């Protein structure tokens, strides 16, 4: 995508994608726990604190420093069967899971990547609490390669294999931080997800538009699925993006889960960066901020209920009540008008500063002088003027306020000032999170300093023989073509659907002798979905149950019309046999002939069409139309 900034100069979008795909291996990457997410309640809870540590080269990573600066306490919930001593950081990891490694090698081959000769497991520092150890184990498996899109070739940088993080349950835990050093509350995580193998594919920044990003992500996604070794469903695949516009810094966008909006997400982020770059030209080089001023008394006059509710009775913090919530403000020199500058629809520069304040101190947001204060907060012009005066705003200055306790407010306003101070530099290096089609500031961009060798796991040499033995599964395109040919004979549209979502199951059942491939395809792609939508518990449809179902059909034990009620029956926990016995078994040719004879006796001289219609009407589920036609025609 080419953007045009306010001066009319052209800016090129550059984007790289990182795709993280959870693997459906039997065990986690470094322990013997299963890889399914557990609905079961936790059987135990563990509480920990994490600290920032220096990387292998003795440098403290800025992202790690940022998180550790928050000094949070974390709580981990342990579901039975899917969390063990390795997950709780109480036992050294097992060897690298070979099933996961083989899948990563398969993926590397499909992407034309070069596999390294010796794999070293590294520790990537993460102190947001999502890993009990304070790091994520990750290993570089292959380098280079490409994937072709209709917009051009996209290079592959790396193929890695790594541990999934644990799933966040609650961003804050009760009672945390009350003792000890009085730190901010931490978060609660569940450990069933921690350690599930992920394949991570990072592309070169060759992508030039949102549409190309979406296509590349789709292609890599279908390639991953074709291995038959990946997990399916919400959250099992996610994309991180690296986006920059010419001349600007790289911004990492985490956690894009919806492929459908990926194109708009990329384009919006590029637009935002372009707008930030444009704003840089108007921003002052030096931004002075006043000392933090207590404006609780002025904010107490605001009529907005949330402000009234938030401010503690008695207001201002005192030595006796250091945690009292009040309102605090600073001025920012030369920022009048800039805070209100719209970067994207409903996203102003003030929104950016607000995200920095939230991330640094956990405050709700900021209130600033470029807002419609009367409408949003019930702050009169007169009060606004008094706030400006209190913060010693001169002409052209803006003020920013935060409603929080003093300690949080100081941290939040310091973050606001530091971000505003670099506004003149344009796009800053940072990590943002995807929120729908837009992004929001999360934390500073991590550097390579956060890598450290995993000393508990020996390196894995990749023998060339092992690599040769890794088979490349057929691609989505190849499978789509295959399914249209004999012996399958699916329509082009159905072949694509099956290739995309059901190829493994389809190919398994298609081996049943005498089976109609179209019946399997319809059942997998349509019937089961329809039955689920009606409220049936389709999780009961195990592979064994479906095998029996298709075998019975191949043996002409039921008609196509009976498929839905039979599947509904199986969903209630019945066997296929049992459902057939409940009046759904297909009538034999002899029984159909008897029905025809009986009807003819009841209604002598009945026309063939009517005869067919009446019988089908009453016996739709158990009479095969072809059998009936034959009987009606007296064959």
């Amino acid at each position, binding site marked *: 995508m080419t953007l045009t900034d306010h001066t009319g100069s052209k800016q090129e979008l550059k984007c790289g994608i990182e795709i993280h795909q959870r693997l459906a291996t039997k065990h986690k990457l470094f322990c013997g726990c299963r890889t399914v997410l557990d609905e079961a309640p936790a059987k135990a809870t*563990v*509480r*920990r*604190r*994490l*600290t*920032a*540590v*220096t*990387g*292998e*080269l*003795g*440098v403290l990573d800025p992202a*790690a420093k940022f998180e*550790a600066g928050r000094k949070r*306490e974390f709580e981990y919930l342990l579901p039975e069967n899917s969390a063990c*001593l390795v997950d*709780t*950081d*109480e*036992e*050294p990891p097992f060897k690298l899971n070979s099933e996961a490694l083989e899948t990563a090698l398969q993926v590397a081959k499909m992407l034309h990547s*070069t596999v*390294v*000769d*010796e*794999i*070293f497991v*590294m*520790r*990537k520092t*993460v*102190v947001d609490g999502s890993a*009990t*150890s*304070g*790091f994520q184990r*990750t*290993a*570089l498996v292959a*380098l*280079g390669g490409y994937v072709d899109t209709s917009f051009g070739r996209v290079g592959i940088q*790396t193929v*890695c294999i790594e541990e999934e993080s644990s799933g966040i349950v609650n961003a804050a835990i009760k009672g945390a931080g009350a*003792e*000890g*050093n009085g730190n901010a509350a931490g978060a609660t995580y569940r450990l069933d997800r921690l350690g599930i193998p992920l394949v991570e594919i990072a592309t070169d920044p060759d992508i030039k538009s949102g549409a190309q990003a979406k296509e590349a992500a789709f292609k890599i996604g279908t390639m991953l699925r074709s291995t038959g070794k990946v997990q399916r469903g919400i959250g099992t695949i996610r994309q991180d993006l690296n986006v920059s516009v010419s001349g600007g810094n790289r911004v990492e966008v985490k956690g894009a889960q919806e492929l459908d909006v990926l194109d708009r997400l990329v384009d919006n982020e590029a637009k935002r960066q372009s707008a930030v770059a444009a704003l840089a030209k108007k921003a002052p080089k030096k931004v002075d901020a006043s000392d933090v001023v207590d404006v609780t008394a002025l904010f107490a006059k605001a009529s907005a209920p949330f402000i009234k509710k938030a401010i503690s009775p008695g207001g201002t913090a005192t030595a006796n009540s250091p945690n009292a919530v009040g309102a605090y403000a600073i001025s920012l020199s030369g920022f009048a008008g800039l805070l209100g500058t719209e970067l994207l629809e409903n996203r102003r520069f003030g929104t950016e500063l607000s995200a920095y304040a939230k991330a640094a101190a956990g405050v709700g947001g900021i209130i600033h002088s470029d807002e419609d204060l009367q409408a949003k907060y019930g702050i009169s012009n007169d009060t606004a003027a008094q706030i400006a005066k209190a913060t010693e705003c001169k002409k052209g200055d803006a003020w920013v306020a935060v409603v929080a306790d003093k300690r949080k407010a100081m941290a939040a306003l310091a973050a606001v000032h530091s971000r505003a101070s670099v506004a003149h530099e344009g796009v800053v290096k940072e990590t943002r999170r995807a929120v729908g089609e837009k992004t929001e500031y999360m934390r500073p961009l991590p*550097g*390579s*300093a*956060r*890598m*450290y*060798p995993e*000393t*508990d796991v*020996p*390196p894995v*040499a990749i023998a060339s023989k092992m690599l040769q033995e890794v088979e490349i599964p057929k691609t989505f395109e190849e499978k789509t073509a295959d399914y249209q040919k004999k012996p399958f004979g699916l329509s082009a549209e159905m072949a694509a659907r099956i290739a995309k979502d059901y190829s493994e199951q389809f190919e398994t059942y298609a081996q049943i002798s005498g089976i109609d491939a179209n019946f399997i395809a319809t059942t997998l792609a349509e019937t089961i979905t329809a039955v689920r939508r009606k409220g049936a518990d389709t999780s009961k449809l195990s592979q064994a149950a479906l095998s029996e179902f298709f075998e019975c059909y191949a043996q002409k034990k039921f008609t196509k019309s009976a498929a839905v009620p039979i599947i509904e029956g199986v969903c209630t926990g019945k066997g296929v046999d049992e459902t057939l016995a409940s009046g759904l078994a297909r009538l034999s040719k002899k029984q159909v002939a008897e029905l025809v004879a009986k009807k003819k006796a009841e209604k002598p001289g009945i026309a063939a069409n009517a005869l067919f219609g009446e019988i089908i009407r009453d016996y739709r589920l158990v009479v095969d139309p072809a059998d009936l036609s034959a009987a009606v025609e007296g064959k």
Partner: protein
Amino acid sequence: MNKLVRLLEKANASGLDRVSVKTSDGLKLEGLVMPRIEYGDQDCLILKMDSGYNAGFAAGKIDELKVVAKAGAASTKAKAPAKETATKTAAKPETNNLPKIAMIATGGTIASVVDYATGGVRWKLDAEQIATAIPELSNRVDIAAFHSPFRISSEDMTHVEWQKIAEVCAKELSGEENRGAIITHGTDTLHFTAAAMSFMLSQYKKPVALVGAQRSPDRGSFDGIMNMTCAAAYATSDIGEKAIVMHATTNDDYCYAARATKVRKMHSSRRDAFQPINDTPLAKVWPDGKIEKTNSCIATREEVESAKPLVGFDPKVAIVKVYPSSDPEIVEFYVSKKYKGLIVEGTGLGHVPMDPGHKSSWLPAIKRAVEAGVYVGMTTQCISGKANQFVYSPARQLSQAGVHYLSDMLTETAYVKLGWALAQKKNQKDVAELMAANIAGEYNERHEYY
């Protein structure tokens, strides 16, 4: 000389140089040369990419290798590892009214960082470096003296190291300068050293905290931070005992201070490996300095003017474990090697095979040992509970034969105490008396139900 060494020598490249590499697979790479670890394929070049990843590339597939920048040069993108001395800036508040303690570091996980020779971790940090890595300490105590007499793993500790530690510690505990001391140590044999300090420093009624870590300081989940902060609280307390101060549970909430003669490593990797045995913890210690005493029998801290530490230790002592089909000849071996003391770790209440008609009966060998003047002590391999000679008649026979039943003393403690007692007393009777005396809480007569 292997391919990798030849390749690096030819290019005049060495560890941490920034190099460019072209491989026959068509890869063009740039990164830092990492030292080749002893484990794995010795012909693979380990390259650290700018992404931070390390990966191995077979030397045989490298067509070209050129040095882009020598290690430490300004153009080296990633900085070379910070030198050990770089961290030696212990931040001390200028006006310091904090209680003073001494710190002795001996090695172990708590002092470990990555080792490129093996790819594992190795004990490299000295006392000051360990303390610097835990800024929380500087708010609680003034570490007035740092000692790093040696840096070894705890499995390599011998009585010679115990003696050295005890001498250094005794010097620091004498006089009014220090409230107490912290000894950092590997965890494998921490409980042996703890017992040794209990006896060797038995006249020093000041708090001495023995501390280790089960996770190394190079990880965000380093457990030594809480262990050390709690140890500092313990070392400045009014308790006059030696204790191992480490995680009480898997949580980072509080530590146990467990009496140094009644504690044992009970798990090979968990944080809460050190649990009191046959005793309740002396205290629960929180990282914010709070201490809750949980034992009804605790010695109170006393000033020590000057005493001579009792560092004597006779290494001619051994532990012998009994098990089904175990050969009593092991006892004869020690007697023939002029050993002066044996701790037999018996089954159950303190039993050994002794069916009279049976070849594997231990009774004759034990009798000969006692006759030869060897002190034979009996402990239980059950770990928890006491050895008792009165319940079954074979044990009575052993007792009559001169075996000393050591009640609830832990095998490891008994071993250390015996070596120490043999150096303190000359004749057998005095040794037996000293072994039976409760010197440092090694006996706990009353076991509470819990």
